[in-house]
């Protein structure tokens, strides 16, 4: 696989990686922001598998995020203590994880946070992915909100009050060390996701997904078992989104059904928006979109103070109406040669604008 990467691209990758490794140490105050930046990129590039490559615009990926969050923390606690007692007593005051217990729980929890959402995607995929177009969009919107409402009614995980994730064991270092640890863990997840998806897009899989997007009936008629590919794509998304959810649960430290875990109004919309902003159906589009969006959000959100959702609503409308092809689509139109599209000089001269 490495041999496929061109020399120029290799420099870009190394540059990005070096930046990601060094930047949080140069700006230690912004470590949490960097972590969330990576999380947003992960959400955007996994959403792109459905929304961009496959043409299935889902609002339901947030469910995997929330499930991953609850599963990870639930297992971290449940392995060593009684989960029901933990949520009733408010957690961290009565029960304390030793460092060994904490890390054992974290690894097992993260593993489960990846596998359980993937299994859920596998089970519901056959039904849900059979829907087309706006029926699929509304159905996944319903699933995303229903999962938040259901989680808000279950007493074991704290119902509407939410529950605390296991606190960082203080013996091995303070908050600074904790933030650093979770930053590098998120970075590892990001690299894993990006490399996997880049490899995935270099295989036949991407062609099949694009065929589904362009004309599903025709793809089926040509002998492609579209349902199998659609479900595989969703399972991959669920796997990585679940992992990201498990990490975010631990970083935030407090899990609440509607505003943290199944936050359709923030994360659920953000992932769609970032992908469209960057450009659907490209590898780098979601990365760029997420970065631009995150920078915009972190630098201007505090100015709006209470008006964030108004700004978000306006932003959605502006992006959807005026920038539907995203940044990558805009660049592609202006500079086709950057994308390897060769334009004949004769053709360029022959073009006539009709005014």
């Amino acid at each position, binding site marked *: 696989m490495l041999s496929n990467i061109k020399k120029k691209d290799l420099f870009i990758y190394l540059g990005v990686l070096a930046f990601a490794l060094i930047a949080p140490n140069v700006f230690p105050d912004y470590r949490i922001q960097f972590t969330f930046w990576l999380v947003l990129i992960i959400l955007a590039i996994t959403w792109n598998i459905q929304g961009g490559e496959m043409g299935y615009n889902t609002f339901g990926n947030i469910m995997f995020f929330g499930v991953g969050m609850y599963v990870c923390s639930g297992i971290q606690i449940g392995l060593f203590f009684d989960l029901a007692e933990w949520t009733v007593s408010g957690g961290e005051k009565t029960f304390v994880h030793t460092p060994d217990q904490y890390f054992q729980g974290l690894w097992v929890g993260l593993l489960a946070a990846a596998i359980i959402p993937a299994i859920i995607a596998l089970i519901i995929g056959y039904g849900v992915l059979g829907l087309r177009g706006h*029926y699929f969009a509304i159905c996944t919107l319903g699933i995303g909100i*229903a999962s938040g409402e259901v989680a*808000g009614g279950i007493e074991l995980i704290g119902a509407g009050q939410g529950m605390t994730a296991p606190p960082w064991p203080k013996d091995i270092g303070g908050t600074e060390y904790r933030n650093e640890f979770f930053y590098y863990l998120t970075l590892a997840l990001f690299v894993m996701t990006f490399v996997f998806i880049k490899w995935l897009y270099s295989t036949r899989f991407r062609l099949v997904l694009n065929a589904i997007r362009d004309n599903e009936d025709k793809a089926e008629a040509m002998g492609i078992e579209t349902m199998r590919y659609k479900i595989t794509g969703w399972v991959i998304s669920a796997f990585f989104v679940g992992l990201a959810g498990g990490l975010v649960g631990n970083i935030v430290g407090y899990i609440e059904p509607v505003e943290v875990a199944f936050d359709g109004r923030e994360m659920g919309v953000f992932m769609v928006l970032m992908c469209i902003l960057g450009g659907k159906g490209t590898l780098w589009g979601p990365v760029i979109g997420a970065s631009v969006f995150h920078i915009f959000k972190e630098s201007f959100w505090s100015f709006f103070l209470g*008006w964030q*959702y108004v700004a978000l609503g306006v932003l959605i409308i502006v992006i959807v109406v005026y920038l539907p092809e995203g940044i990558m689509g805009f660049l592609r139109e202006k500079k086709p040669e950057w994308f390897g599209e060769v334009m004949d000089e004769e053709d360029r001269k022959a073009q006539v604008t009709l005014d």
Partner: protein
Amino acid sequence: MDFLIFEHPILIVQALMDGVLLGILFALIAYGMALQWGVMNIINIAQGELVIMGGYVAYFLYMYGIHPAYGVIVSPIVMYFVGIGIYKLVINKVVDKDLFTSILATFGISILMMQLMNFVFGADVVVAQSNFGTTMLFDNSVTLPNSKIFASVVSVLAAIVLVLYMKKSKLGRAIRATAQNARAAKILGVDTEKVYASTFGINAALCGVAGALIAITFTLHPYVGLPYTVRSFMIVIVAGLGNLPGVALSGMGLGVFEEFADYLLGTEFRIAAVFLLLVLILMYRRFKLARSREYLK
């Protein structure tokens, strides 16, 4: 687990009546959604927010000492212009794009309206008292607030007026022609842009009526719009576009379902039950369609 509803069978009658009266309201909102879906081919996620905003207009009157029942007249007028404004600003740019664009754009409108209402009216649950009293039935074991009866009568009246308007008036004819074939209508001299704008306005006005009725019978809160959107979407896909008796029937069915879900699962799962029903209905539809595709093969 013991269910109150099975110990006291009279509660079944209560749930049925509440459900039917609630369902008529849902049907009114769904009718508006079916109208704009059929004519403009967009799905309006902000439908529920239009309803809640209509309710707040009635609540606004109530705050200034006017009886909220007058909201039934004031609110559609206000909402008609709100609808026209939203159309001119956003909807006319997405009306000929693909459906997902309109879904996402109206989702943006919905977030925007939600937050604006939160600023203006606060995040508290409010209710506009109508003081219509209650009717007692069956030896005082079934209570029926008169406001709910008022609400269903007004909804039926509003639906009848709209149907007559669509049948008889010139604009109604233009709207129906555009729904059948927008291009042909355009060729024959229908100003489709104006038709779209008025369709969206009429839909918003219907939402205004429904919202004013909800303000006096139930409660208002800035963030409860989305369930109304989902309910009307559900009713429309069960009944089909342009099937008014079907919309009324499935609206009432949904109302009864919700009341029973309330008794059987508990109030905290009510919204979850609505959204899960949506998923179930879509699944049923999907497997039914898949079967008919098998026949074709």
